[in-house]
């Protein structure tokens, strides 16, 4: 009996020793690459789940919008959007209204808010039609009932549109490094800087106004503010917001050094509207 006990203790000790050794090596969890796959046969419920993921990730919707029920934010709160969407715009069903505000956001601005959202179907966010349907399903489910499926057809999604977008993005990618001939203003629009920064008004949006950037910042500070937004953050603004946004839209992967220079030069020229 004594022997059996000794053997038991010995076995436990040896196993514990190996467990201990294994704790000494680097501990790292590897997560599967995150991608929200939209299968053709997804049900509406699955679309809602996928849409929520997209809204929080690739779509970067939640950078500006809240889903908390608190009103008074800079962008409309979405907590009840599924309920109110149908009544927002005369002659538009809830799906149509949501689709329009994603594809063509500045067509209708909710009272009390300023235009500023970029078309979600275009770069930099660049969601495809299926992903936008998933987002619509998710938005419907907020306070309402999701009805869309991947077969739902919207008039904003058209063959030409998607084909043109594909061609444009390919052309952009192919010409990528050499497409240095865009003006600073075009780059500012292309990378959707205007969503958060105004160059025409001194009023701050989500980020500080760049109305007077040329006088407020040196060129080096502008470079730093773009490439490492969190290095210096003015007090009243949220740290991490801009870097998260730029990372999510792939800004750092896309911008070349030439473009960056053009953009900084453009910003340096903004001197109080002059």
């Amino acid at each position, binding site marked *: 009996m004594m022997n059996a006990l000794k053997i038991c203790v010995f076995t436990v000790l040896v196993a514990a020793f190996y467990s201990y050794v294994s704790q000494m090596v680097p501990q790292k969890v590897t997560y599967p690459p995150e991608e929200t796959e939209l299968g053709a046969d997804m049900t509406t419920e699955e679309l809602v789940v996928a849409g929520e993921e997209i809204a929080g990730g690739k779509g970067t919707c939640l950078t500006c919008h809240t889903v908390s029920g608190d009103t008074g934010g800079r962008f409309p709160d979405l907590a009840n959007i599924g309920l109110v969407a149908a009544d927002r715009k005369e002659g538009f069903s809830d799906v149509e209204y949501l689709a329009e505000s994603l594809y063509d956001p500045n067509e209708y601005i909710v009272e009390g808010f300023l235009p500023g959202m970029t078309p979600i179907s275009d770069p930099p966010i660049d969601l495809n039609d299926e992903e936008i349907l998933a987002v619509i399903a998710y938005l419907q489910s907020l306070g309402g009932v999701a009805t869309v499926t991947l077969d739902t057809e919207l008039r904003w999604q058209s063959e030409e549109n998607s084909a043109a977008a594909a061609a444009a993005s*390919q052309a952009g*990618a*192919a010409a990528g*490094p050499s497409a240095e001939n865009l003006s600073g203003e075009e780059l500012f629009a292309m990378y959707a800087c205007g969503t958060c920064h105004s160059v025409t008004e001194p009023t701050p949006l989500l980020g500080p106004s760049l109305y007077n950037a040329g006088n407020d910042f040196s060129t080096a500070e502008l470079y730093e503010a773009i490439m490492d937004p969190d290095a210096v953050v003015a007090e009243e603004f949220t740290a991490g917001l801009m870097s998260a946004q730029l990372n999510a839209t792939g800004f750092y*992967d896309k911008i070349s050094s030439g473009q960056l220079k053009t953009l900084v030069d453009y910003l340096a020229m903004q001197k109080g509207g002059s």
Partner: protein
Amino acid sequence: MNILILLAACAGLLALRFVPKMNILGWLVGWWAATFVFLRWGINPPLPTSIQGMFLAILTLALLAYISANSVHFRFVLDRAVAFATEKKYTVALAVTLVLLPCLVALRVYFDITEGPAPPLSSRTIHPPPPVSIEVAGRMIDLVNDDNPYRALETEDPAAFAEHVANGRRVYYENCVYCHGDDMAGDGLFAHGYDPIPANFQDATTIAMLQEGYIFWRIAKGGPGLPSESTPWLSAMPAWENFLTEEEMWDVTLFLYDFTGHRPRAREDHGGGGDGH
């Protein structure tokens, strides 16, 4: 390698031979101490403490096996231990040991706790597994099956191949040399500002053991394209697909191998199974 320390450790062990009435315990302690000294101070640059600890643990295991693998030794050591614990003449030593041991542990805990903040120990995966295919300038490149498209020229058309290598040389000295260095040893002008430091292509464990598709992947996608297991440090390598054409990237790959004299890891024919994928 610090030869002086090595010699000192060896001399110390040799000196033990001439100690009269040297017993097995003395030898064990001597070997342990000599190895410790060598591992701690004898190697330059110093070994990380984690490795020193591992080596010493293995040595300890081996020394314990050595005393217990021989009943004479084993009994002797047991006798000494029992004597130490029971005999009168050791009482003082025993008391000192009993007091000192907890003190040492306490001291260790004290040092561990009062140590200033330090980044956590971590290792990064130098060569993470590549994706199956990547997209460069709108074109899908199959990293599993595609080879360097210009590699075949080496035998088919040496002149054209030399042109590609020359182009690669140009690309290297225009872009890569600042970090990877004049002789590709990863010691360019900027190298010392980075963590992780640039790869050393002369080393047998970098490009020499990888396929060209892998090199192409690293050049095209750079630091931003590294998977998460290569964190926590972020490689400063730019994603060259934004600055170079596909051909230039393949050419510079050719040049890396040409300059260092390494050969890319060859693709092996699949041994078993039916037809491949």
